[in-house]
């Protein structure tokens, strides 16, 4: 990646979510994304758990949402865009449609997330919101969760996938 390609510019703010406890974001992906951000030479915000922060209605979320509304670009590396938008809404800081790019660490490989975060790759943003068409990936995720014993071990029959 060239130097230019990794510049986010002053009007870009990046937010990285570490997603604690449930292991729904693969550890290798969130680890590699953090390494990529930390090695980029750019400043960024990192939170232990965006869900926890939203539940506290942390005013910092309102600041970030306001930035995006004020013309800056807010890039968020977390999970499904629908969930992230819901969390900002719950925190009384709804995100606008413009200026917000959400990268999904649940479904994308770290390189794609980093391409979206550091270079504003529109393809990575679009893929983040697209549905899972790879049942195997989801099964692998469920297996990982079961193995870690963090969520109920028995999946009810007929579970919605």
């Amino acid at each position, binding site marked *: 990646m060239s130097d230019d390609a990794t510049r986010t510019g*002053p009007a870009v703010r990046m937010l990285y979510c*570490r*997603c*604690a*406890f*449930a292991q*729904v974001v693969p550890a290798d992906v969130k*680890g590699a994304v*953090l390494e990529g*951000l*930390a*090695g980029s030479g*750019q*400043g*960024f*915000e*990192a*939170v*232990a*758990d965006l*869900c*926890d*922060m*939203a*539940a*506290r*209605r*942390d*005013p*910092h979320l309102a600041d970030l949402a306001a930035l995006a509304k004020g013309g800056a670009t807010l890039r968020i590396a977390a*999970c*499904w*865009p*629908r*969930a*992230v*938008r*819901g*969390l900002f*809404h*719950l925190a009384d800081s*709804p995100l606008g449609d413009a200026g917000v790019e959400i990268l999904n660490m*649940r479904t994308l490989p770290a390189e794609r997330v980093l391409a979206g975060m550091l270079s504003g790759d529109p393809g990575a943003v679009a893929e983040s*919101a*697209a*549905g*899972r068409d790879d049942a195997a990936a*989801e099964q692998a*995720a*469920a297996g990982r*969760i079961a193995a870690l014993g*963090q*969520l*109920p071990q028995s*999946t*009810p*029959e007929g*579970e*919605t*996938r």
Partner: protein
Amino acid sequence: MTTLATRQPRVVLYEGSGAEPLAGPERAELVASLLDRGYSVTLAHEGAAAAADEATFVVVGRFVGGAPLVTAADATKVEVHDCTGRTPAEVVGLVDGARADRPLNTPGAGDSWKPWFPVIDPVRCTNCMQCLSFCLFDVYGVDADHRLRVENPSNCKVNCPACSRVCPDVAIMFPKYHAGPIDGAPVSQTDVGREKMKIDISALLGGDLYARLRERSAEAKNRFSRERSADQALAERRRCLTKLADAAAIPREVLDALPSPEEIQRKSAEAAKRAAAALAGQAAAEGTGPAASSPSA
């Protein structure tokens, strides 16, 4: 009950003027260690220094020629520490010391609060209030405009996504759930159909899931009084509830922790009343309900 009234404390890792930058891998390791402890971290570079707010209590960096004085927006003095030559674990220790009595939640560690609660998709929600009347734990409430609001996230039962099953519009997400669309994945037409089917299952089981739970709980209680073995009675109660639990994906621990049948009844009536009031409020605001058309007293 966990209090969510306080913000998670924030650490600024400063690498702007007057400080030496850390090497990339070192920086990643330090940020990861602070995050895993529960802190928020702002990595502030030249020209992008973070505004200190009341959540910020410490700035760490490899300062050259002495640590600068930093003051937060609310005039609280922010501690500044030089982390030159310290390992990430030592920096976390330093930050823990500087935090003093500021509360910190390390999600997932020990008995700390686990951020598990419903998140509403405002685009899909029709404010029908079915979730509000379903939940026995006062997780839901309404805002000043009589719209649904997740009022008490910490009242939610960890790993229980049951209310997402009662939403006819598939608007309830649990971001840490393992499968879509409950985890926030896009909702397909098939999902809408499937979710409706789940509601039908609970209807087949007796219309009102809690009414059925109540019944089962009472049955289990009667059995318990007849059984000589408490273990046997408990096993029976679990067996009775299995079908219901599977229909709504309610974890057994949540069912086992349900209050007494009387308390369930009281809470359901209360929740239904609040839902009805919210719907009446909505109708009045839209000028379509009885409150809007009835003459003022």
